């Protein structure tokens, strides 16, 4: 027999489907919703529905967008000759939050992972190649994660883009700001030494 009324149980089940939310957190969220006003609950439900109805992928960069083209791609102030390739929309948001990049993006929606059977065709690589071939881009910056999958993706993209005569670069890898050399792994240290800069 269930502990709660079926409607509450149902709400807990739905909330526990969210990433990082277990049954306990889902119960806490469910009771928060039950305690809040009807207007707040309607506003939450409405936002979820509106997001599902209105949000899609930008047809240029494949970032999450409201409308056909996202705010970054439609902004004439951005440098459209500089293309930054990221794995997921979250990575794009992290770079945007840093506020230092003025170019445009291309979101792959994943990374090559041979062990999971994810190859280039499951990603937005063909769309990237077509975009690069259309011209107007001078540099492609590969901002994939420094993981085996991210490395494989960057190596593959460099292999297919470099013959087109464009500059292909990868974001630097090394010791994080505030990090401690003592606890940095060998691979990261090696990358830091390889990518050192003259001062």
């Amino acid at each position, binding site marked *: 027999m269930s502990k709660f009324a079926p409607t509450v149980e149902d709400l807990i089940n739905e909330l526990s489907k969210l990433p*990082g939310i277990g049954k306990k957190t889902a119960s806490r969220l469910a009771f928060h919703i039950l305690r809040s006003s009807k207007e707040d609950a309607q506003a939450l439900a409405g936002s979820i529905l509106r997001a599902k109805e209105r949000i899609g992928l930008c047809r240029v960069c494949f970032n999450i967008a409201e409308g056909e083209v996202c705010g970054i791609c439609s902004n004439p102030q951005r440098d459209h000759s500089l293309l930054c390739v990221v794995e997921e929309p979250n990575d794009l948001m992290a770079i945007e939050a840093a506020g230092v990049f003025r170019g445009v993006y291309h979101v792959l929606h994943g990374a*090559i*992972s*041979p*062990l*999971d*059977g*994810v*190859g*280039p*065709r499951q990603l937005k690589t063909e769309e990237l190649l077509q975009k690069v071939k259309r011209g107007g881009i001078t540099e492609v910056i590969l901002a994939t994660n420094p*993981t*085996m999958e991210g*490395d*494989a993706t960057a*190596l*593959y993209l460099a*292999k*297919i883009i470099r013959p087109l005569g464009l500059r292909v670069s990868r974001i630097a890898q090394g010791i994080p700001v505030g*990090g*401690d050399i003592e*606890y*940095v*792994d*060998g*691979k*990261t240290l*090696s990358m830091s030494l390889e990518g050192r800069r003259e001062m």
Partner: protein
Amino acid sequence: MYLLKTDAVVIHCADFGESDLIVTLYTYDLGKIRGIAKGAKRSKKRFVNNLQPFSYIRIIFSEGRGGLIRLDQADIIQPFFLISKDIFKVLYGSYFLELMKEMTGEKEANPQLFCLLVDFLSVLNDSPPREEYLRVFEMRVLDLLGYRPRLGECTICARRISQGEGAWFSYRHGGVVCKGCQTKVRGSVPVSGATLEAMEKALEMDLGEVGEIQFFPDVLSESREILPRFIQYQLGKGLKSLKVMEEIQGD
């Protein structure tokens, strides 16, 4: 809690919740195991990014619940990080790892197989990527796991296949069949004497010579046709890394 220690190679690593990782390891003492590394995504001291695939590590762990071990610490022995600097090394290395993942059972220790994996990852890390490594690795893994194909005599009539003589390879019979028996076997593929010799040599050669190995193009092509298919026949399913390898090699 009783803590244990063993050497391991990271086969697979996946996110679990906000900060944990679920890792699949091939270990010296326990064979293949799966474990949870609590807080590994944020850990700057206990795991320090040492749980990436291909890493050769020493782990401290305890037995956990539901068949999962609980990883307490992972120290690097050899990161094999040069593998991640070449797309073909990544593809070949992933194939090695997938073979270990799919062909072995959990907690079935096989120290020889562990050493073979470490040796091949070392070769791949230190030498230019060659497709020949895959074929030698396949033959050695099949041998160590008891699936060694019979190459010296017909698997049906037991007639000796003389040196340099071609034959047919039957996936169902787990080895070669002679010209006389070939008509009775459906789905067998022709195999030259040179390929049979190369496959035998792959089992006998000193692993120190693997970095220099080079097959003739027709031997490479025939063995590529036979060995991965034989392994998939034995497994009863396809291998994901092979599919990705074919996709990227075709581009």
